[in-house]
Protein backbone atom coordinates (compact mmCIF):
# COMPACT_ATOMS: atom_id res chain seq x y z
CA UNK A 1 0.00 0.00 0.00
CA UNK A 2 1.25 3.49 -0.88
CA UNK A 3 2.22 5.38 2.23
CA UNK A 4 3.05 9.05 2.52
CA UNK A 5 6.01 9.72 4.81
CA UNK A 6 6.42 13.32 5.93
CA UNK A 7 10.06 14.47 5.96
CA UNK A 8 10.98 14.88 9.63
CA UNK A 9 12.96 18.06 8.93
CA UNK A 10 10.21 19.79 6.95
CA UNK A 11 7.86 21.52 9.36
CA UNK A 12 9.15 25.02 10.00
CA UNK A 13 7.84 26.80 6.90
CA UNK A 14 4.01 27.00 6.81
CA UNK A 15 4.23 27.51 3.01
CA UNK A 16 4.67 23.81 2.37
CA UNK A 17 6.23 20.51 3.30
CA UNK A 18 8.33 17.71 1.81
CA UNK A 19 7.20 14.10 1.85
CA UNK A 20 8.10 10.83 0.19
CA UNK A 21 5.89 8.22 -1.39
CA UNK A 22 6.93 5.04 -3.20
CA UNK A 23 10.55 6.12 -2.85
CA UNK A 24 9.93 9.44 -4.62
CA UNK A 25 10.32 12.92 -3.15
CA UNK A 26 7.47 15.42 -3.35
CA UNK A 27 6.82 18.93 -2.10
CA UNK A 28 3.38 20.18 -1.19
CA UNK A 29 2.66 23.89 -1.43
CA UNK A 30 -0.08 25.17 0.84
CA UNK A 31 -2.21 28.32 0.59
CA UNK A 32 0.43 30.32 2.46
CA UNK A 33 3.06 29.67 -0.22
CA UNK A 34 0.84 29.38 -3.31
CA UNK A 35 1.03 33.03 -4.41
CA UNK A 36 4.81 33.17 -4.18
CA UNK A 37 5.17 29.89 -6.06
CA UNK A 38 2.75 30.93 -8.82
CA UNK A 39 4.41 34.32 -9.25
CA UNK A 40 7.92 32.83 -9.47
CA UNK A 41 6.80 30.05 -11.80
CA UNK A 42 4.81 32.32 -14.12
CA UNK A 43 7.64 34.82 -14.39
CA UNK A 44 10.13 32.08 -15.23
CA UNK A 45 12.20 32.62 -12.07
CA UNK A 46 12.50 28.92 -11.28
CA UNK A 47 13.49 28.13 -14.86
CA UNK A 48 16.24 30.74 -14.73
CA UNK A 49 17.64 29.42 -11.45
CA UNK A 50 17.46 25.79 -12.58
CA UNK A 51 19.12 26.66 -15.88
CA UNK A 52 21.92 28.46 -14.03
CA UNK A 53 22.43 25.30 -11.93
CA UNK A 54 21.51 27.08 -8.71
CA UNK A 55 18.26 25.30 -7.85
CA UNK A 56 17.18 21.67 -7.76
CA UNK A 57 14.80 20.86 -10.62
CA UNK A 58 11.14 19.97 -10.14
CA UNK A 59 8.10 18.81 -12.07
CA UNK A 60 4.61 19.85 -11.22
CA UNK A 61 2.47 16.78 -10.58
CA UNK A 62 -1.07 16.04 -9.55
CA UNK A 63 -1.33 13.46 -6.79
CA UNK A 64 -5.00 14.12 -6.13
CA UNK A 65 -6.10 12.74 -2.78
CA UNK A 66 -2.69 11.20 -2.15
CA UNK A 67 -1.16 14.63 -1.41
CA UNK A 68 -1.30 16.06 2.14
CA UNK A 69 -4.41 18.01 3.10
CA UNK A 70 -4.35 21.63 2.01
CA UNK A 71 -2.06 21.04 -0.98
CA UNK A 72 -2.53 23.66 -3.70
CA UNK A 73 0.46 22.69 -5.85
CA UNK A 74 2.52 19.51 -5.73
CA UNK A 75 6.07 19.17 -7.05
CA UNK A 76 8.20 16.08 -7.67
CA UNK A 77 11.93 16.48 -7.08
CA UNK A 78 14.79 14.19 -8.10
CA UNK A 79 15.95 12.02 -5.20
CA UNK A 80 19.21 13.25 -3.68
CA UNK A 81 21.73 10.45 -3.25
CA UNK A 82 22.73 11.53 0.27
CA UNK A 83 21.69 14.34 2.58
CA UNK A 84 24.61 16.01 4.32
CA UNK A 85 24.76 18.63 7.03
CA UNK A 86 26.88 21.76 7.49
CA UNK A 87 28.84 20.31 10.43
CA UNK A 88 30.07 17.58 8.08
CA UNK A 89 31.13 19.79 5.19
CA UNK A 90 34.70 20.62 4.22
CA UNK A 91 35.60 24.31 4.59
CA UNK A 92 35.45 25.11 0.86
CA UNK A 93 32.13 23.33 0.44
CA UNK A 94 30.74 25.50 3.22
CA UNK A 95 32.09 28.56 1.47
CA UNK A 96 30.63 27.49 -1.88
CA UNK A 97 27.24 26.95 -0.20
CA UNK A 98 27.37 30.53 1.11
CA UNK A 99 28.32 31.94 -2.29
CA UNK A 100 25.55 29.90 -3.92
CA UNK A 101 23.00 31.69 -1.73
CA UNK A 102 24.43 35.09 -2.64
CA UNK A 103 24.55 34.30 -6.37
CA UNK A 104 20.92 33.21 -6.26
CA UNK A 105 19.98 36.28 -4.24
CA UNK A 106 21.61 38.68 -6.70
CA UNK A 107 19.89 36.99 -9.63
CA UNK A 108 16.53 37.06 -7.84
CA UNK A 109 16.76 40.73 -6.86
CA UNK A 110 17.03 41.71 -10.52
CA UNK A 111 13.56 40.25 -11.03
CA UNK A 112 11.91 41.58 -7.88
CA UNK A 113 12.29 38.33 -5.91
CA UNK A 114 14.56 37.20 -3.09
CA UNK A 115 15.36 34.30 -0.77
CA UNK A 116 12.95 34.16 2.14
CA UNK A 117 15.51 32.25 4.17
CA UNK A 118 19.22 31.51 4.00
CA UNK A 119 19.56 28.22 5.81
CA UNK A 120 22.66 26.08 5.25
CA UNK A 121 20.32 23.06 5.29
CA UNK A 122 18.84 24.32 2.01
CA UNK A 123 22.03 23.42 0.16
CA UNK A 124 22.81 19.87 -0.92
CA UNK A 125 25.15 18.07 -3.31
CA UNK A 126 23.15 16.29 -6.00
CA UNK A 127 25.99 14.25 -7.49
CA UNK A 128 27.25 16.94 -9.82
CA UNK A 129 27.20 20.23 -7.90
CA UNK A 130 25.80 22.08 -4.89
CA UNK A 131 22.26 23.34 -5.37
CA UNK A 132 19.56 25.07 -3.38
CA UNK A 133 16.90 22.47 -2.72
CA UNK A 134 14.10 24.49 -1.18
CA UNK A 135 11.85 25.76 -3.99
CA UNK A 136 9.77 27.64 -1.44
CA UNK A 137 12.71 29.76 -0.28
CA UNK A 138 12.06 31.93 -3.30
CA UNK A 139 9.48 34.64 -2.81
CA UNK A 140 8.52 38.05 -4.09
CA UNK A 141 10.59 40.73 -2.46
CA UNK A 142 8.65 42.87 0.03
CA UNK A 143 9.23 46.40 -1.34
CA UNK A 144 11.71 48.46 0.67
CA UNK A 145 12.01 45.79 3.31
CA UNK A 146 15.39 44.66 4.67
CA UNK A 147 16.41 41.11 3.77
CA UNK A 148 14.57 38.93 6.28
CA UNK A 149 17.27 36.24 6.09
CA UNK A 150 20.26 38.53 6.66
CA UNK A 151 20.65 37.52 10.33
CA UNK A 152 20.28 33.85 9.43
CA UNK A 153 22.84 34.11 6.64
CA UNK A 154 25.40 35.70 8.96
CA UNK A 155 24.78 33.07 11.67
CA UNK A 156 24.74 30.09 9.33
CA UNK A 157 27.54 31.04 6.98
CA UNK A 158 29.60 34.12 7.70
CA UNK A 159 30.12 33.51 11.41
CA UNK A 160 30.89 29.82 10.92
CA UNK A 161 33.38 30.44 8.11
CA UNK A 162 35.14 33.22 10.01
CA UNK A 163 35.45 31.05 13.12
CA UNK A 164 36.70 28.09 11.10
CA UNK A 165 39.27 30.14 9.21
CA UNK A 166 40.48 32.42 11.98
CA UNK A 167 39.98 30.41 15.20
CA UNK A 168 40.13 26.71 14.38
CA UNK A 169 38.84 24.57 11.54
CA UNK A 170 37.24 22.24 14.12
CA UNK A 171 34.73 25.01 14.83
CA UNK A 172 32.79 23.71 11.82
CA UNK A 173 32.04 20.41 13.53
CA UNK A 174 30.89 22.24 16.69
CA UNK A 175 28.11 23.65 14.50
CA UNK A 176 26.01 20.64 15.39
CA UNK A 177 25.45 22.20 18.81
CA UNK A 178 23.98 25.34 17.25
CA UNK A 179 21.50 23.95 14.81
CA UNK A 180 20.38 27.41 13.67
CA UNK A 181 23.86 28.78 13.16
CA UNK A 182 26.36 30.28 15.57
CA UNK A 183 24.96 33.11 17.72
CA UNK A 184 26.79 36.21 16.51
CA UNK A 185 27.80 37.34 19.99
CA UNK A 186 29.58 34.01 20.42
CA UNK A 187 31.30 34.48 17.07
CA UNK A 188 32.59 37.93 17.94
CA UNK A 189 33.75 36.82 21.38
CA UNK A 190 35.63 33.91 19.84
CA UNK A 191 37.27 35.69 16.90
CA UNK A 192 40.75 37.12 17.49
CA UNK A 193 40.48 40.88 18.16
CA UNK A 194 42.24 41.94 14.96
CA UNK A 195 39.83 39.85 12.90
CA UNK A 196 36.77 41.39 14.56
CA UNK A 197 37.74 44.74 13.06
CA UNK A 198 38.41 43.60 9.49
CA UNK A 199 35.99 45.74 7.44
CA UNK A 200 33.58 43.02 6.21
CA UNK A 201 33.62 41.07 9.45
CA UNK A 202 33.27 44.26 11.48
CA UNK A 203 30.14 45.31 9.60
CA UNK A 204 28.38 41.97 9.26
CA UNK A 205 29.49 40.28 12.49
CA UNK A 206 30.83 42.65 15.16
CA UNK A 207 28.47 45.57 14.59
CA UNK A 208 25.65 43.18 13.74
CA UNK A 209 26.11 41.35 17.07
CA UNK A 210 26.19 44.69 18.89
CA UNK A 211 22.90 45.74 17.28
CA UNK A 212 21.33 42.39 18.10
CA UNK A 213 22.42 42.82 21.71
CA UNK A 214 20.95 46.32 21.86
CA UNK A 215 17.65 45.18 20.37
CA UNK A 216 17.46 42.23 22.77
CA UNK A 217 18.12 44.49 25.74
CA UNK A 218 15.33 46.82 24.59
CA UNK A 219 13.00 43.87 24.24
CA UNK A 220 13.81 42.72 27.77
CA UNK A 221 13.03 46.08 29.28
CA UNK A 222 9.77 46.32 27.28
CA UNK A 223 10.75 49.08 24.85
CA UNK A 224 10.14 47.01 21.76
CA UNK A 225 6.68 48.42 20.98
CA UNK A 226 7.96 51.33 18.94
CA UNK A 227 10.36 49.21 16.88
CA UNK A 228 9.26 48.77 13.28
CA UNK A 229 11.11 47.70 10.18
CA UNK A 230 13.52 50.16 8.64
CA UNK A 231 13.52 50.72 4.87
CA UNK A 232 16.15 49.34 2.54
CA UNK A 233 16.29 50.38 -1.12
CA UNK A 234 16.93 47.90 -3.94
CA UNK A 235 20.38 49.39 -4.55
CA UNK A 236 21.07 49.12 -0.84
CA UNK A 237 20.14 45.45 -0.85
CA UNK A 238 22.25 44.70 -3.93
CA UNK A 239 25.16 46.51 -2.32
CA UNK A 240 24.68 44.55 0.88
CA UNK A 241 24.71 41.23 -1.02
CA UNK A 242 27.88 42.25 -2.88
CA UNK A 243 29.52 43.26 0.36
CA UNK A 244 28.66 39.85 1.86
CA UNK A 245 30.01 38.20 -1.30
CA UNK A 246 33.33 40.07 -1.01
CA UNK A 247 33.57 39.27 2.69
CA UNK A 248 32.90 35.55 2.19
CA UNK A 249 35.33 35.38 -0.76
CA UNK A 250 37.96 37.03 1.41
CA UNK A 251 37.77 34.40 4.16
CA UNK A 252 40.56 31.97 3.46
CA UNK A 253 41.71 29.01 5.45
CA UNK A 254 45.39 29.75 4.99
CA UNK A 255 46.52 26.58 6.69
CA UNK A 256 45.13 24.64 3.78
CA UNK A 257 47.73 25.83 1.28
CA UNK A 258 50.27 23.83 3.30
CA UNK A 259 48.24 20.67 2.88
CA UNK A 260 48.80 20.59 -0.86
CA UNK A 261 52.51 20.74 -0.20
CA UNK A 262 52.32 18.07 2.51
CA UNK A 263 50.16 15.78 0.39
CA UNK A 264 52.60 12.90 0.76
CA UNK A 265 52.60 13.31 4.52
CA UNK A 266 48.86 13.02 4.95
CA UNK A 267 48.95 9.88 2.87
CA UNK A 268 49.93 7.51 5.63
CA UNK A 269 50.62 4.56 3.35
CA UNK A 270 53.16 4.07 0.60
CA UNK A 271 52.53 4.03 -3.13
CA UNK A 272 52.99 0.27 -3.59
CA UNK A 273 50.38 -0.56 -0.93
CA UNK A 274 47.97 1.84 -2.56
CA UNK A 275 48.49 0.22 -5.98
CA UNK A 276 47.85 -3.31 -4.67
CA UNK A 277 44.82 -2.29 -2.69
CA UNK A 278 43.52 -0.25 -5.60
CA UNK A 279 43.52 -3.31 -7.86
CA UNK A 280 41.51 -5.28 -5.35
CA UNK A 281 39.05 -2.44 -4.63
CA UNK A 282 38.59 -2.09 -8.38
CA UNK A 283 37.74 -5.80 -8.72
CA UNK A 284 35.30 -5.67 -5.76
CA UNK A 285 33.43 -2.67 -7.14
CA UNK A 286 33.22 -4.29 -10.58
CA UNK A 287 31.89 -7.47 -9.00
CA UNK A 288 29.28 -5.94 -6.67
CA UNK A 289 28.25 -2.96 -8.85
CA UNK A 290 27.10 -0.88 -5.85
CA UNK A 291 25.03 2.28 -6.30
CA UNK A 292 26.01 3.74 -2.94
CA UNK A 293 29.47 3.34 -1.43
CA UNK A 294 30.60 4.76 1.90
CA UNK A 295 34.37 5.07 2.06
CA UNK A 296 34.96 5.32 5.81
CA UNK A 297 38.34 6.65 6.87
CA UNK A 298 38.94 7.70 3.28
CA UNK A 299 42.09 9.80 3.84
CA UNK A 300 42.78 11.48 0.48
CA UNK A 301 40.05 9.48 -1.24
CA UNK A 302 42.01 7.28 -3.72
CA UNK A 303 39.57 4.41 -3.30
CA UNK A 304 36.56 6.71 -3.50
CA UNK A 305 37.78 7.72 -6.94
CA UNK A 306 37.88 4.07 -8.02
CA UNK A 307 34.33 3.42 -6.82
CA UNK A 308 33.05 6.63 -8.44
CA UNK A 309 34.71 5.68 -11.74
CA UNK A 310 32.22 2.78 -11.98
CA UNK A 311 29.25 5.08 -11.49
CA UNK A 312 28.69 4.59 -7.75
CA UNK A 313 27.83 7.58 -5.59
CA UNK A 314 30.53 7.72 -2.93
CA UNK A 315 30.28 9.29 0.51
CA UNK A 316 33.90 9.76 1.46
CA UNK A 317 34.20 10.22 5.21
CA UNK A 318 37.29 11.14 7.18
CA UNK A 319 37.79 12.64 10.62
CA UNK A 320 40.57 14.92 9.42
CA UNK A 321 39.27 18.22 7.96
CA UNK A 322 42.53 18.57 6.02
CA UNK A 323 41.78 15.36 4.13
CA UNK A 324 38.18 16.21 3.27
CA UNK A 325 39.21 19.71 2.20
CA UNK A 326 41.88 18.13 -0.01
CA UNK A 327 39.27 15.88 -1.58
CA UNK A 328 36.75 18.68 -2.12
CA UNK A 329 39.37 20.90 -3.74
CA UNK A 330 40.42 18.09 -6.03
CA UNK A 331 36.82 17.46 -7.03
CA UNK A 332 36.05 21.11 -7.66
CA UNK A 333 39.21 21.54 -9.73
CA UNK A 334 38.58 18.48 -11.87
CA UNK A 335 35.06 18.85 -13.18
CA UNK A 336 35.12 15.39 -14.70
CA UNK A 337 35.02 13.76 -11.26
CA UNK A 338 31.46 13.50 -10.08
CA UNK A 339 29.48 11.61 -7.51
CA UNK A 340 31.85 11.93 -4.53
CA UNK A 341 30.73 13.73 -1.39
CA UNK A 342 33.58 14.27 1.08
CA UNK A 343 32.38 14.65 4.68
CA UNK A 344 34.27 15.35 7.88
CA UNK A 345 33.21 13.11 10.71
CA UNK A 346 34.80 11.41 13.70
CA UNK A 347 33.86 7.79 13.02
CA UNK A 348 34.01 6.96 16.72
CA UNK A 349 31.34 9.61 17.18
CA UNK A 350 29.39 9.74 13.91
CA UNK A 351 26.73 12.41 13.31
CA UNK A 352 23.77 11.83 15.65
CA UNK A 353 20.09 12.63 15.08
CA UNK A 354 19.53 16.25 16.04
CA UNK A 355 17.03 19.08 16.20
CA UNK A 356 13.39 19.00 17.20
CA UNK A 357 12.43 15.69 18.80
CA UNK A 358 15.91 14.47 17.76
CA UNK A 359 14.47 13.68 14.32
CA UNK A 360 14.90 16.91 12.38
CA UNK A 361 18.43 16.09 11.18
CA UNK A 362 19.30 12.47 10.59
CA UNK A 363 22.15 10.47 12.03
CA UNK A 364 24.65 8.92 9.65
CA UNK A 365 23.09 5.51 10.32
CA UNK A 366 19.59 6.79 9.44
CA UNK A 367 20.89 7.98 6.09
CA UNK A 368 21.97 4.47 5.13
CA UNK A 369 22.28 1.73 4.32
CA UNK A 370 25.12 1.76 1.82
CA UNK A 371 25.48 -1.04 -0.71
CA UNK A 372 29.16 -1.29 0.09
CA UNK A 373 31.32 0.11 2.88
CA UNK A 374 35.05 0.47 2.34
CA UNK A 375 36.83 0.23 5.68
CA UNK A 376 40.45 0.34 4.57
CA UNK A 377 43.10 0.97 7.22
CA UNK A 378 40.31 1.93 9.61
CA UNK A 379 39.50 -0.69 12.22
CA UNK A 380 42.92 -0.68 13.94
CA UNK A 381 42.34 3.03 14.64
CA UNK A 382 38.88 2.34 16.05
CA UNK A 383 40.17 -0.45 18.31
CA UNK A 384 43.48 0.99 19.42
CA UNK A 385 42.91 4.76 19.38
CA UNK A 386 39.18 4.96 20.10
CA UNK A 387 38.87 1.81 22.26
CA UNK A 388 35.94 0.27 20.36
CA UNK A 389 35.90 -3.56 20.57
CA UNK A 390 35.99 -5.47 17.29
CA UNK A 391 32.58 -7.10 17.81
CA UNK A 392 30.99 -3.64 18.16
CA UNK A 393 32.65 -2.48 14.97
CA UNK A 394 31.21 -5.54 13.19
CA UNK A 395 27.75 -4.75 14.61
CA UNK A 396 28.00 -1.13 13.47
CA UNK A 397 28.92 -2.17 9.94
CA UNK A 398 26.00 -4.60 9.88
CA UNK A 399 23.66 -1.67 10.65
CA UNK A 400 24.89 0.51 7.84
CA UNK A 401 25.66 -1.86 4.96
CA UNK A 402 25.17 -5.22 3.33
CA UNK A 403 28.73 -5.56 2.14
CA UNK A 404 31.93 -4.35 3.70
CA UNK A 405 35.44 -4.53 2.39
CA UNK A 406 37.51 -4.42 5.54
CA UNK A 407 41.26 -4.30 5.85
CA UNK A 408 42.87 -6.11 8.74
CA UNK A 409 46.32 -4.78 9.58
CA UNK A 410 48.28 -7.34 11.61
CA UNK A 411 49.61 -6.36 15.05
CA UNK A 412 53.18 -6.64 13.73
CA UNK A 413 52.59 -3.90 11.13
CA UNK A 414 54.60 -0.69 11.77
CA UNK A 415 51.41 1.42 11.75
CA UNK A 416 49.87 -0.72 14.49
CA UNK A 417 53.14 -0.75 16.40
CA UNK A 418 53.16 3.03 16.25
CA UNK A 419 49.69 3.14 17.84
CA UNK A 420 50.72 0.62 20.49
CA UNK A 421 54.01 2.27 21.35
CA UNK A 422 52.78 4.09 24.43
CA UNK A 423 50.06 1.65 25.39
CA UNK A 424 52.02 -1.41 26.39
CA UNK A 425 49.57 -4.24 27.10
CA UNK A 426 46.82 -1.88 28.25
CA UNK A 427 44.58 -2.04 25.21
CA UNK A 428 41.66 -4.03 23.81
CA UNK A 429 42.54 -7.41 22.29
CA UNK A 430 43.51 -6.99 18.66
CA UNK A 431 44.54 -9.98 16.56
CA UNK A 432 43.39 -11.95 13.53
CA UNK A 433 41.53 -14.62 15.53
CA UNK A 434 39.42 -12.08 17.41
CA UNK A 435 38.80 -10.15 14.20
CA UNK A 436 37.61 -13.28 12.39
CA UNK A 437 35.41 -14.48 15.25
CA UNK A 438 33.86 -11.00 15.77
CA UNK A 439 33.11 -10.40 12.11
CA UNK A 440 32.30 -14.07 11.44
CA UNK A 441 29.33 -13.85 13.86
CA UNK A 442 27.57 -11.35 11.63
CA UNK A 443 29.22 -11.56 8.22
CA UNK A 444 30.21 -14.25 5.75
CA UNK A 445 33.73 -13.83 4.44
CA UNK A 446 33.22 -14.50 0.79
CA UNK A 447 36.52 -13.30 -0.56
CA UNK A 448 39.90 -12.34 0.83
CA UNK A 449 43.28 -11.19 -0.32
CA UNK A 450 46.57 -10.99 1.51
CA UNK A 451 48.89 -8.24 0.40
CA UNK A 452 52.67 -8.61 0.29
CA UNK A 453 53.10 -6.53 3.42
CA UNK A 454 50.91 -8.93 5.42
CA UNK A 455 47.80 -6.77 5.45
CA UNK A 456 44.58 -8.62 4.66
CA UNK A 457 41.47 -7.54 2.83
CA UNK A 458 38.22 -9.33 3.67
CA UNK A 459 35.11 -8.94 1.57
CA UNK A 460 32.19 -9.58 3.92
CA UNK A 461 28.48 -10.06 3.27
CA UNK A 462 26.00 -9.54 6.11
CA UNK A 463 24.25 -12.72 7.13
CA UNK A 464 21.78 -11.27 9.64
CA UNK A 465 20.51 -7.88 10.71
CA UNK A 466 20.77 -7.03 14.37
CA UNK A 467 17.86 -5.11 15.86
Amino acid at each position, binding site marked *: MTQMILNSGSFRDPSGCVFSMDGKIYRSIFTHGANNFKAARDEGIYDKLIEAGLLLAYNEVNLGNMAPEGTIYCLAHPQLPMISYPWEWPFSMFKDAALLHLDAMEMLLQHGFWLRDASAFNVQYDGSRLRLIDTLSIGRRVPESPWVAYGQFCSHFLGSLAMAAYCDIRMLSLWRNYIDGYPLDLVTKTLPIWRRYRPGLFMHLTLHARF*QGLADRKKHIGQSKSVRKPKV*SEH*GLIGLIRSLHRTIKGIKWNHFSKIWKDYREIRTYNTEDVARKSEYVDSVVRRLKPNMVWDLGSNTGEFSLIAASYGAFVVSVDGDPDCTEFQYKRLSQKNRIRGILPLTMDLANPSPSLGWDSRERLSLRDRGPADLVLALALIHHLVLSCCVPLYQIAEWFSNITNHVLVEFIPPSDPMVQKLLRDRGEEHLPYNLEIFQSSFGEIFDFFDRKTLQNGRMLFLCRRKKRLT
Partner: protein
Amino acid sequence: MKANSKLIVGLALLFILIFFMDSAFAYLDPGTGSMMIQALLAIFAAVSVSIGIFWRRLRSFFGRISSQKSSEEHDSDDT
Protein backbone atom coordinates in the same frame (compact mmCIF):
# COMPACT_ATOMS: atom_id res chain seq x y z
CA MET B 1 37.31 53.05 21.49
CA LYS B 2 34.36 51.69 23.48
CA ALA B 3 32.83 55.15 23.96
CA ASN B 4 33.34 55.89 20.26
CA SER B 5 31.62 52.74 19.08
CA LYS B 6 28.70 53.39 21.48
CA LEU B 7 28.35 56.86 19.99
CA ILE B 8 28.36 55.42 16.45
CA VAL B 9 25.75 52.80 17.34
CA GLY B 10 23.62 55.45 19.10
CA LEU B 11 23.75 57.81 16.12
CA ALA B 12 22.99 54.97 13.76
CA LEU B 13 19.95 53.96 15.79
CA LEU B 14 18.71 57.54 15.77
CA PHE B 15 19.23 57.73 12.01
CA ILE B 16 17.38 54.48 11.40
CA LEU B 17 14.41 55.49 13.54
CA ILE B 18 13.69 58.17 10.93
CA PHE B 19 13.16 55.49 8.28
CA PHE B 20 10.74 53.22 10.14
CA MET B 21 7.93 51.55 8.23
CA ASP B 22 5.34 48.82 8.81
CA SER B 23 6.47 45.25 9.25
CA ALA B 24 6.14 42.52 6.57
CA PHE B 25 5.15 38.93 7.21
CA ALA B 26 7.83 36.21 7.22
CA TYR B 27 7.97 32.79 8.85
CA LEU B 28 11.58 33.48 9.75
CA ASP B 29 12.13 36.00 12.53
CA PRO B 30 14.31 38.59 10.83
CA GLY B 31 15.49 39.95 14.20
CA THR B 32 15.22 43.64 15.06
CA GLY B 33 18.97 44.08 15.46
CA SER B 34 19.68 42.41 12.12
CA MET B 35 17.22 44.72 10.37
CA MET B 36 18.63 47.84 11.98
CA ILE B 37 22.25 47.13 11.14
CA GLN B 38 21.20 46.12 7.65
CA ALA B 39 19.44 49.43 7.10
CA LEU B 40 22.56 51.26 8.20
CA LEU B 41 24.89 49.20 6.00
CA ALA B 42 22.45 49.40 3.09
CA ILE B 43 22.72 53.19 3.05
CA PHE B 44 26.46 52.99 2.39
CA ALA B 45 25.97 50.05 0.04
CA ALA B 46 23.32 51.95 -1.95
CA VAL B 47 25.67 54.91 -2.32
CA SER B 48 28.46 52.66 -3.57
CA VAL B 49 26.15 50.82 -6.01
CA SER B 50 24.76 54.15 -7.29
CA ILE B 51 28.29 55.53 -7.78
CA GLY B 52 29.16 52.33 -9.66
CA ILE B 53 26.13 52.70 -11.95
CA PHE B 54 26.85 56.41 -12.52
CA TRP B 55 30.50 55.64 -13.29
CA ARG B 56 29.58 52.95 -15.81
CA ARG B 57 27.10 55.28 -17.52
CA LEU B 58 29.69 58.03 -17.61
CA ARG B 59 32.23 55.69 -19.17
CA SER B 60 29.80 54.36 -21.74
CA PHE B 61 28.72 57.96 -22.57
CA PHE B 62 32.29 59.06 -23.20
CA GLY B 63 32.98 55.74 -24.91
CA ARG B 64 30.10 56.46 -27.29
CA ILE B 65 31.36 59.97 -28.00
CA SER B 66 34.88 58.78 -28.71
CA SER B 67 33.62 55.93 -30.94
CA GLN B 68 31.38 58.41 -32.81
CA LYS B 69 34.35 60.70 -33.29
CA SER B 70 36.55 57.92 -34.55
CA SER B 71 33.83 56.67 -36.94
CA GLU B 72 33.36 60.24 -38.21
CA GLU B 73 37.10 60.43 -38.78
CA HIS B 74 36.94 57.13 -40.64
CA ASP B 75 34.01 58.42 -42.72
CA SER B 76 35.90 61.61 -43.58
CA ASP B 77 38.94 59.50 -44.49
CA ASP B 78 36.77 57.45 -46.86
CA THR B 79 35.30 60.47 -48.63
